[in-house]
């Protein structure tokens, strides 16, 4: 077979390279290349459901939402993602109006780096979620494991802490939330992320929301520090700066 032939003819160098590839879980020849810098062209502070309608709350979910909304309004609950620039969590970080970049690397990982609050999501490729870490180290942006299905990067995430909202209106989630994203190019210059939210304590069924981003390799991701001046967002419809 071809790869064996490379191994025996090319000597130790190529064999070592392939061994390193094999051991480190590098991107498959079959994997799509999603790398690049992307930027949304629209922003929605409230989740827009695929298929329309309102979030399908359970009684507990509705109560939690009302508590969040009231607290945000009277100031007893602080939106720490905006005030202290702690990570936004999922899916809120997917909605944000700043650019982000996807890098297929290091081998065995896809890394997504957001300009907003310099957030970093590491997606372990072709490995299961580390169940023991999900409880021991709950994270704002959760823990993620991904694999390719054809041209689509499928990312499962869990191990979220309860310190984030699903969106800017305060939609709630529990630390048992699990999400699945299907990320793919829908055109040479557009990336789509459809995320399914599974959180039965607060929602009567799984639901999806969808984001489309424009490939913008003409940009560079900029440094972001909480409270400082940042890039012009006037190209993103729906952004209101207080």
């Amino acid at each position: 077979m071809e790869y064996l032939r490379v191994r025996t003819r090319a000597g130790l160098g190529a064999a070592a390279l392939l061994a390193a590839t094999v051991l480190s879980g590098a991107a498959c020849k079959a994997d799509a290349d999603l790398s690049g810098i992307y930027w949304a062209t629209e922003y929605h502070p409230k989740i827009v459901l695929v298929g329309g309608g309102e979030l399908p709350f359970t009684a507990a979910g509705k109560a939690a939402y009302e508590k969040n909304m009231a607290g945000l309004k009277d100031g007893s609950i602080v939106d720490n993602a905006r005030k202290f620039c702690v990570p936004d969590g999922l899916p809120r970080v997917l909605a944000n109006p700043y650019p982000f970049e996807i890098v297929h690397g290091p081998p065995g990982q896809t890394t997504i780096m957001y300009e907003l609050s310099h957030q970093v999501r590491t997606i372990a490729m072709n490995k299961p979620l580390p169940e023991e870490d999900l409880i021991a180290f709950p994270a704002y942006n959760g823990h993620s494991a991904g694999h390719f299905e054809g041209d689509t990067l499928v990312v499962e995430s869990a191990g979220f802490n309860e310190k984030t909202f699903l969106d800017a209106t305060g939609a709630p989630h529990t630390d048992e939330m699990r999400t699945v994203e299907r990320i793919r190019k829908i055109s040479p210059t557009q990336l789509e992320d459809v995320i399914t939210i599974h959180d039965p304590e607060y929602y009567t069924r799984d639901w999806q929301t969808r984001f489309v981003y424009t490939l913008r390799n003409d940009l560079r991701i900029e440094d972001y520090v909480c409270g400082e001046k940042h890039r012009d967002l006037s190209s993103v419809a729906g952004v209101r700066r207080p």
Partner: protein
Amino acid sequence: MSKFASRGRLAAMLCVGAAVCAVSAAAFAQRATQPPAKGAIPDLASVDFAWLAMGADWRDPPAGSGHGPIKPDPDHPFHSNVDGPGQVTIRLGDTKDPVLKPWAAAQMLASNEEAISGKRAVPFAAQARCWPGGVPGQLLYPAEPFYFIQSPKQVWMIWQRDHMVRRIFLTDKHSESVTPSWFGESIGHYENGDTLVVDTIGLSTKNSYVDNFRTPHTEKEHVVERFKLSADGKMLEASVVVDDPDTFNAPLHMVQRWRKVKNTLLETVCAENNADFFHQNLFPLPEAEKADF
């Protein structure tokens, strides 16, 4: 089974759901983020290992290199909490170092006096107060590791603490005009198969210091860092030159070292549990008075 079918089946078997993949070396070089041939560039990036700083202060450069890093004020020696028995002290820089321009020495003196008087009992340190460390200050972050990502055109350095990211563009020229920013504009290249050379300009000055003694700089600061991997691959050493003719009478030369650790990147959020618990008038964290959007 034909040779073609068996090869295809092997590829399918290897690609689906496993960490193994049969790719030709050429395809690999084109799309993956590792070097095209082992030994051509230093192997700095991995999901399995990271680099942990061996100290939060600059080391002296080799003898004859030129002026070294700013040292502690001899009247206020620095005793860290990893220096063994003895009262821990705070970092107060030697403002009498003749390499410092008068304005820089005066600013450092004011910072020292603010700390000594108790007005700000613990002086500013970017890492502790969730501000970017800038260049080269970010290299002094201890306790939590940093990670590289290497692609053919770019290198990323990601610090676990607060997920700070430096980006290095593997190109040979800076942009025509650079708007100053927290980490500036870094360009770089590899040398000798074991060294990453990084050249940085365009560094903004707000809350930005070249060390943990609050040694300041101006926007003219120009930093060259040479990150060299040890022969056994277990240690990384950066030789740093800081050139700022408006701050220093001669370039500063300093060294930082990291050891390789088997850590995966965790999420740690600096602003969590970072209140002024002991009422020391700590420097404020970055905070948005109004929501950014």
